[in-house]
């Protein structure tokens, strides 16, 4: 099986952001590079599949500039690696077409990437469309059923999960919360240290331009406020109680054992505890 893994080198300021002189980039002084958890998960999932399925190989496409960052992933089980240099000022989405051109000839069975990493900014979904492969997002678990058939578990938030059946070829976006254990083996790490990373520069005519970077100015989120059509005295009261309306509480007191029994009964009624 041919697996591609797409990884994006991310950067973020440590503490208060500092900008380059023209405000179009971050000052490197307090910028840290990192690989998103979801991208690491994609790499680890790919390695897991490779270990299970004979004759598999992994080709890593790394969008970023620091070869050492890339190397930290290769030990997980990469066979080939491309370091694709990108300009940080560009909107990565606008490069998906070029990326799809690189990938399309390779005819990968499976493309793995991170929901919040390489696949973010709409890149993952866009690639699935351009390559014409099935898309799975928010992946938490993957199970092989037959050569081409897989069962994928996704997270839908609020603790909800969904199981899907998928056929390859597919592009799968791993969620940050996907769990993996195990560390790369030393032989893989040693091997990875000697992988010849192919470097190329990705250029494309950008449609949008970065004008400036600035400190964040979020728009207002929801906030508690007293009702507007009530008297000042009532407004004040609402503020004092944090807006929780006074409820007529049922009271339970007495022997702890009895109290506990009654409370458990209440929990059963609430369907928190099975009856």
């Amino acid at each position, binding site marked *: 099986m041919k697996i591609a893994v797409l990884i994006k080198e991310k950067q973020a300021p440590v503490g208060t952001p500092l900008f380059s002189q023209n405000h179009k980039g971050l000052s490197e002084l307090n910028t840290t590079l990192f690989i998103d958890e979801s991208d690491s998960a994609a790499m680890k999932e790919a390695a897991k599949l490779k270990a299970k399925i004979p004759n598999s190989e992994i080709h890593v496409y790394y969008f970023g500039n620091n070869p050492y960052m890339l190397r930290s992933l290769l030990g997980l089980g990469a066979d080939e690696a491309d370091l694709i240099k990108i300009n940080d000022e560009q909107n990565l989405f606008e490069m998906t077409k070029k990326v799809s051109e690189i990938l399309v000839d390779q005819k990968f069975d499976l493309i793995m990437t991170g929901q919040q990493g390489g696949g973010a900014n709409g890149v993952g979904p866009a690639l699935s469309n351009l390559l014409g492969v099935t898309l799975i997002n928010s992946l938490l678990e993957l199970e092989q059923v037959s050569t081409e058939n897989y069962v994928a578990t996704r997270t839908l938030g609020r603790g909800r999960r969904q199981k899907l059946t998928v056929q390859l070829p597919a592009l799968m976006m791993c969620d940050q919360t996907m769990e993996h254990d195990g560390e790369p083996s030393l032989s893989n790490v040693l091997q990875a240290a000697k992988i010849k990373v192919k470097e190329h520069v990705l250029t494309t005519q950008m449609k949008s331009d970065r004008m*400036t970077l600035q400190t964040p100015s979020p728009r207002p989120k929801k906030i508690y*406020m007293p009702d507007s059509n009530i008297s000042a005295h009532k407004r004040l009261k609402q503020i004092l109680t944090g807006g929780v309306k006074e409820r007529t509480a049922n009271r339970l007191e007495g022997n702890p054992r009895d109290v506990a029994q009654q409370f458990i009964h209440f929990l059963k009624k609430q369907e*928190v505890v099975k009856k």
Partner: protein
Amino acid sequence: MNNVLVFIEGEEGKITEDSKNIVKDSKKLADLLGGSLIGAAYSEAISQEELTQAAIDVFWELPFTLDDDPCGQLAGSEIGCLVGEAKLGLLLSANNLLGETILAIAAASSDGVFFHSCRQISIDAGDFKIHQSTYNGKVDEVRILPKHSNVAFATIIPSGTGRNPYFEKKNPVTVQKVNPLVNGMVPKIMETFKAKAENIDLTEAEVVVAMGDGIANEKGLKLVSQFANLIGATLGGSRIVVDNGFLPHNKLIGLTGNVVAPRLYIGVGVSGAPHHLIGIKESDVIVGINSDPNAPLLKVADLAIIGDAFEILPALIEGLGGDQVV
């Protein structure tokens, strides 16, 4: 190319709060561009009644449900196919998984430009000015996209204090059923289920147990953790508990921490300072366990249990079939 499309999400037939906020933003932009506002949603997602109140001009009902298209691939392609025909210049949705997937696919298939995590889109000297959150939310970026030659797709971080009514209704909504234009390999749903409590974030949890200063010691932590485990609740804490290091800061419930909205909230030894109460007021049912009958939490609780938590918790744990840990 002056029409604006907003992708609308529904929850049990109702338009989600986030989508409502985006509709509000979109309406302003449509007016500014002099186009009409089209709302698009999955089939069966939005009830008829909810629709008539939405401040959109046209409603597109996609030819499939979310269950037919769990990862949004069909919807994205479908909308992408219609960009030119419907003279769309700008497509928006809430900044979440589904919105991002659908709009990015639509953008890819219609050669448009997609922007994620936008705070605001405005029109500046005839061009799109995109105000975007980037670098893990630590920096804002302003980008310009020439409007005459491009269609912009953007997911917007929902905002709104909740003070204003969402819709100022003017015209009736024209409902259009969209014909299926695309087909492809779509993953099939096998089942949908609930994850274990410890894997659920506080703000997402359905049952929350809060540890308060009344039981702020090692023993209290052990008991309350075990109780939370037994009933499948996610554990959080009040300010004092977090300040004293019994729980990490991301477990703080209150104004400055997590605002929780569970089906059931149980405060154990929580006195109920106003900032904590603000953090739990969205809870459906509030239960307080406290030895002080005057604790403010007990006054706002649906069920007030008066007694020593160090006696009640072991009894509860025993009653629920757990082994005593302390």
